[in-house]
C-alpha cells in the first residue's frame, strides 16, 4: 500500500474525518478523552504553565542575589524559593515534559498505532499529574517547603514548613510518571505496525523506550522514600532520625537511587527529539542508527550505577565513593556516542536552518559542555572542591535547561504543525532562539566561575567580591526569561492565526508525518505496513511522500 501524492494532498486539504481537535468540542469531551493526542495536548499546556511558574521562582531568586546581603526576600523566603523552583521545574515540568506531552502525541503515530496500549490509564496519568500539582500548589500557598528539592533528612523530617503536602505531591506525581512509562513500554511491544521491527523504530521511540524503563524501575524507590519521610513527619517514627539510631545517609542513598536516573528521564527524551530533528533538518540518514538506539538503552541502565557521585562528601564509605566515581565515568560514553553520531549526521547534509535546527545547535553546544563538566564533577577529588557550589548548579542547568529545554523547544517547533495544523512565525522563532541561547550563556557561565571560586549554593548571603558575577547572571536570566516569553506569545497567536500548514511542511521522513496534520482521531485511515528504515533520506521521492510499502 503506497501513500500516493494524491492521498497526501487530499489529507492536507480537507480530510474526510474531523481532526482530533474538532472531534468533540465540549469541555467534557476533553476531560473524558481516550485520545492520546488530546492527553498529550493537555499535558503540554500544563507543563508549559508550570515551566513559567518555576521560572518565576528562578527570577525571584536571581533578583534577591543581586545584593550580597539581605534584600527583597528574607532567609526563610529565599530557602522556600529555591526549593519550590527545584520541585516545580523537576517534578512538574522536566520529568513529564517531553514524554507526557510529545511522547503521548507522537509515539503511537510513529508506531503506526491508533492509540497507546491503555488509553484510560493514560488519562488517569494526567489526572494523577493534576492531583500532584494541586498538592504542590496548596503547599506553595501555605508558604512551601524550605528543604531544597532534595529533602535531606533529618531537616526535612523536622522543619516546620509545608514539607508534607510537597512530599505527597511528589509521591502522586511519581505514580503519574510510572503509569506513563508502563503504558509506553507496552505500546512499543504490542502496537507496532506490521513490518515495524525493532531496528526500524524511529530514534525518538528508542529514546522514549529507554526513558520508560527508567521511569518504571526508579520511581517507586523515591515513592517509598518520600512516604517514609512523610510518616516520620506525621507519626514521629522513621528510618532516618539519628536520635533513634537512624542514618541520614541512608535517605540520600534511597533518594539518589531514583534522582540520578531521573536526570536521564529528563534528558533522554530530549536526545530522542534531537535524533529526529537532526535527520530531518540535515535531510540525511542518521549516522550510526544502531549506535544511537543502543546508547539510549545504555544510558538507561548504566545510569542506575552512579548515584553515589551525589554523596562524595556525605559520609559514605571510601569504597563506595571509589566505586561510584569509576562507574560514573562510563555513563558519559553513551552521550558522547550520540554527539558524534549527530554531528556525523549533519556532516554533508543539506541543512535547513529553521528554528528547530537553531535549538539543535544550542543543544549540542550545551550538552557537550554540560556533559564534560559532569564528568569533571564525577571525579571524586575534584568534587570535594566543587560539591554544593555554583559549579554544580551551572553544570546541571547546562543539561537541564541547555539540553533538555532546548530539545523541548525543538520538539515544540518541529511538531507544532503536526499537532495544530498551523505554522509558527519562523522569524520570531529564530529571534527567540538567539535570545535564549545568549541569555542562557550569560546566566550560567558566570555561575561556573562563581562555583569554582567557592560560592556555595543555596546560600542566602555571599561575600561582596562575588557580586559582579551574580549581577551578570541575573541579567542573563532576565534575557532568558524574555526569550521564553516571546515564544509563549507567538505560539499562542499562531494557534489561532498561524498560517495553515500542509501535512508535512518539513519534508520529514518520520512515520508520524504519514497522516494528516492535525491527524484525525483514529490517526490513520489504514494502518501502514512499514518496509523501510526510519529517517531514510536516500530515496528520491520528493519531499512529502514517504514510501511505506
Amino acid at each position, binding site marked *: 500500500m503506497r501513500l500516493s501524492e494524491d492521498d497526501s494532498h487530499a489529507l492536507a486539504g480537507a480530510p474526510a474525518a474531523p481532526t482530533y481537535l474538532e472531534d468533540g468540542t465540549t469541555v467534557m469531551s476533553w476531560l473524558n478523552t481516550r485520545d492520546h493526542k488530546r492527553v498529550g495536548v493537555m499535558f503540554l499546556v500544563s507543563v508549559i504553565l508550570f515551566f513559567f511558574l518555576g521560572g518565576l521562582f528562578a527570577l525571584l531568586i536571581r533578583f534577591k542575589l543581586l545584593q550580597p546581603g539581605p534584600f527583597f526576600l528574607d532567609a526563610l523566603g529565599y530557602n522556600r524559593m529555591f526549593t519550590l523552583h527545584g520541585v516545580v521545574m523537576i517534578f512538574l515540568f522536566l520529568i513529564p515534559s517531553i514524554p507526557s506531552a510529545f511522547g503521548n502525541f507522537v509515539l503511537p503515530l510513529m508506531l503506526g498505532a491508533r492509540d497507546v496500549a491503555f488509553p484510560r490509564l493514560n488519562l488517569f496519568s494526567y489526572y494523577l499529574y493534576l492531583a500532584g500539582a494541586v498538592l504542590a500548589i496548596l503547599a506553595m500557598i501555605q508558604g512551601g517547603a524550605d528543604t531544597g528539592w532534595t529533602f535531606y533528612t533529618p531537616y526535612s523530617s523536622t522543619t516546620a514548613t509545608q514539607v508534607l503536602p510537597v512530599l505527597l505531591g511528589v509521591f502522586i506525581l511519581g505514580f503519574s510518571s510510572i503509569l506513563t512509562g508502563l503504558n509506553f513500554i507496552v505500546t512499543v511491544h*504490542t502496537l507496532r505496525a506490521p513490518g515495524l521491527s525493532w531496528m526500524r523504530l524511529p530514534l525518538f521511540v528508542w529514546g522514549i523506550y529507554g526513558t520508560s524503563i527508567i521511569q518504571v524501575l526508579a520511581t517507586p524507590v523515591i515513592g517509598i522514600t518520600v512516604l517514609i519521610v512523610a510518616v516520620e513527619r506525621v507519626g*514521629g*517514627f522513621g528510618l532516618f532520625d539519628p536520635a533513634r539510631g537512624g542514618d541520614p545517609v541512608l535517605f540520600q542513598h534511597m533518594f539518589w537511587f531514583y534522582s540520578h536516573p531521573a536526570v536521564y528521564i529528563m534528558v533522554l527524551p530530549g536526545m530522542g527529539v534531537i535524533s529526529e530533528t537532526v535527520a530531518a533538518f540535515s535531510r540525511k540518514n542518521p549516522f550510526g542508527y544502531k549506535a544511537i538506539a543502543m546508547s539510549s538503552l545504555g544510558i538507561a541502565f548504566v545510569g542506575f550505577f552512579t548515584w553515589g557521585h551525589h554523596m562524595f562528601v556525605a559520609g559514605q564509605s571510601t569504597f563506595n565513593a571509589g566505586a561510584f566515581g569509576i562507574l560514573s565515568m562510563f555513563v558519559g560514553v553513551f552521550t558522547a556516542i550520540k554527539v558524534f553520531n549527530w554531528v556525523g549526521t549533519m556532516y554533508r547534509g543539506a541543512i535547513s536552518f529553521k528554528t528547530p535546527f537553531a535549538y539543535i545547535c544550542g543543544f549540542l553546544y550545551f550538552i557537550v559542555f554540560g556533559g564534560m563538566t559532569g564528568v569533571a564533577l564525577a571525579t571524586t577529588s575534584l568534587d570535594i572542591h566543587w560539591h554544593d557550589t555554583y559549579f554544580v548548579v551551572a553544570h546541571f542547568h547546562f543539561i537541564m535547561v541547555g539540553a533538555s529545554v532546548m530539545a523541548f523547544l525543538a520538539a515544540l517547533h518541529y511538531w507544532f504543525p503536526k499537532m495544530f495544523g498551523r505554522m509558527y512565525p519562523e522569524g520570531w522563532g529564530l529571534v527567540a532562539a538567539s535570545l535564549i541561547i545568549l541569555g542562557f550563556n550569560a546566566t550560567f557561565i558566570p555561575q561556573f566561575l562563581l562555583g569554582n571560586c567557592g560560592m556555595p549554593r543555596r546560600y542566602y548571603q555571599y561575600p561582596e567580591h562575588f557580586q559582579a558575577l551574580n549581577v551578570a547572571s541575573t541579567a542573563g536570566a532576565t534575557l532568558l526569561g524574555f526569550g521564553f516569553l516571546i515564544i509563549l506569545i507567538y505560539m499562542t497567536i499562531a494557534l489561532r492565526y498561524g498560517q495553515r500548514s500542509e501535512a508535512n511542511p518539513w519534508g520529514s521522513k518520520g512515520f508520524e508525518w504519514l497522516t494528516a496534520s492535525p491527524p484525525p482521531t483514529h490517526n490513520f485511515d489504514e494502518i501502514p505496513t512499514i518496509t523501510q528504515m526510519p529517517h531514510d533520506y536516500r530515496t528520491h521521492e520528493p519531499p512529502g511522500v514517504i514510501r511505506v510499502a
Partner: protein
Amino acid sequence: MSPEAASLPEGILAHHFASLERQNEAMRLGMWLFLATEILLFAGLFTGYSVYRFEFPLAFAECSRHLSLTAGTVNTIVLITSSFTVALSIHFARTDQRRAAVVCLALTILLALGFLGIKAIEYTAHFREHALPGKYYAFEEVKIPGAAMFYTLYFMMTGLHGLHVVAGMSVLTWLLWRTNQGRYSSRYYTGLELGGLYWHLVDLVWIFLYPLLYLI
C-alpha cells in the same frame, strides 16, 4: 469451534489492538511491569532493613524472638494456601468450571481476611507491650539500641504489606463478582489472571518478610 464454546464470553477487542491475543498479551505485560514497580517499592524498605540489621544485629535478633513465631508461621501457611486457591480459581475458570472458580476465589478472600485477623491480634499485643515504632517505643523486655528501629521497620513493612493485602482483597472481591456473572471462561480469563498475579505478589513479599522478621 463447538457451538457451546462459541457462546462463551470472550474479551472485548479495543479498537487499537490488532487482535484479542495481542491485547491479552499487552494486559499481561502491563501487569508484570506494574508488579515490577511494586517490587521496587518494597525494595526501599528492605534496603532500610538490611542496613539496620547490619548495624544492630543483636537488637534485631532479640526483638525477633519476641514476635509471635506461631502467628507468623500460621500467616505464612495462610498466604501460601491463598496463592494456591487463587491459582486454582484461574485453572477452573479456564476449564469452564465456573462454580469451582467462584468457590476458590471466595476461599482466597477468606484466607486473606484470616491473615489480617491474625495480624490484628499481633498488633494488639505489640500495642499492649508498648513495642512500638520510633519515639513510642517503650518495650520493657528489650532495651538495647536498635530495638526501636526493628519495630519501626516491622510496622512499616507489615503495614505496607497489609495495605496491599487489603487492595488485593478488594480486587479479588470484584473479580469474584465478575466470575460469578460468568465473565471468565476458556475463551477469555485474562482479567482474572491479572488479579491473581497481583495476589501472588502479595504472597511473594510475605515469603521474604517471614524469615527476615520472625526467624532472625
